[in-house]
């Protein structure tokens, strides 16, 4: 059952990654969508590794899988931080950002180099979670807590939808990380659920995207409608101009050429207005 849910979560992550890559790489490009797509892409193997870890009973493969899962999670948390900064427009101080990246890099190197990876205590024969692992999880929890605080700040600044999304999304990621910490502290064997929080976050973001899309469509329809009204109002002065130019006497060739040029300008303005509706994807 647990394995099935984890595999399904991996599928949701992969689908979300594809959607956000499409949105992010489609012109005009969007960095925050690309970052979120990378985050979801990293979440997908994480869920699969955790699924495999859940059914592994022997020590050696469990260490290999946990090492891979931790490495994956470090990348996920780094991408999560980058996404929150891009999405909210509230970037942390440069020193804080560098410290965050440095800690992430050190954790990654330690995980790859340590005999039992970052997660497990090397001095015990059984699989006991190390204090370093708990510190790393606390660091992850702090990162997500920052995202939640950013959400609260956005709500206070009037950016309610973005703020609520970060609050709910960050809250769900935080809750799952805390569950993982409790699991490790108590030495329980239930599966790691940290990845689920990110899946919930991706679903919330999908709702946000849908609302954004609807808002943009409405705005675009209003703009096109306004442009068409302006075009319609332009046509009567153009008609006056057309008739007026036709009544102007052309005493010589130069004046005749000038009037012809003005007539052509009227024609171009007319064609510009007539093409407006044909070019636009929406009709007013």
């Amino acid at each position, binding site marked *: 059952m647990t394995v099935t849910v984890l595999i399904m979560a991996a599928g949701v992550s992969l689908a979300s990654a594809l959607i956000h890559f499409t949105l992010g790489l489609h012109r005009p490009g969007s960095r925050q969508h690309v970052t979120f797509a990378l985050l979801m892409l990293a979440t997908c193997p994480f869920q699969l590794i955790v699924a495999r870890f859940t059914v592994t009973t022997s020590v050696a493969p469990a260490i290999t899988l946990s090492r891979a899962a931790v490495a994956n999670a470090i990348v996920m948390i780094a991408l999560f931080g980058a996404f929150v900064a891009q999405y909210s427009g509230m970037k942390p101080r440069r020193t804080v950002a560098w410290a965050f990246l440095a800690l992430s890099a050190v954790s990654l190197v330690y995980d790859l180099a340590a005999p039992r990876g970052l997660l497990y205590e090397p001095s015990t024969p059984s699989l006991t979670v190390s204090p370093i692992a708990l510190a790393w999880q606390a660091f992850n929890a702090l990162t997500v807590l920052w995202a939640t605080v950013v959400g609260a700040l956005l709500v206070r600044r009037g950016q309610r939808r973005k703020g609520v999304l970060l609050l709910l999304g960050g809250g769900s990621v935080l809750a799952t990380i805390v569950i993982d910490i409790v699991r490790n502290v108590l030495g329980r064997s239930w599966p790691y659920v940290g990845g689920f929080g990110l899946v919930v976050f991706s679903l919330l973001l999908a709702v946000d995207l849908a609302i954004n899309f609807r808002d943009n469509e409405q705005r675009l329809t209003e703009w096109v409608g306004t442009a*068409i009204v302006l*075009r*319609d*109002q*332009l*046509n*009567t*002065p*153009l*008609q*006056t*101009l*057309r*008739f*007026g130019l*036709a*009544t102007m006497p052309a005493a010589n060739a130069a004046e005749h050429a000038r009037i012809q040029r003005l*007539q052509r300008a*009227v024609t171009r303005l*007319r064609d510009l207005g*007539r093409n407006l*509706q044909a070019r636009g994807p929406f*009709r*007013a």
Partner: protein
Amino acid sequence: MTILMVDDDVDLRAMFAELMRSLNGDCITAASLGDVERQRSTVLACSLAILDLNLGANVPSGIDVYHWLLRAHFSGKIIFLTGYGPDDPLVQEASRLPNAPTLSKPIDVDQLTELTAP
């Protein structure tokens, strides 16, 4: 040939009258259905009526003028001239009326000459 031009834009009416004079034609202009009704006898003597569709907000439209002309047994040709696009409800309504084509502003003098040709 005398042409009736109904349009709520004063500059367009003035320029149209000037153009007709330069082409040795006659015309009468009106800004609204009320203007048309006041000039009933001269209006009914015209052989062509060029009607703007939108004569302003909350006032009778060019389509009302069209119906008035038909009720008054106007024997000339009627055309609608509009600055509005094909999606406009008035334009769509006008396009369903018989024997009254709709032209889009701005028309040029050649088109006008064709319309006034006997």
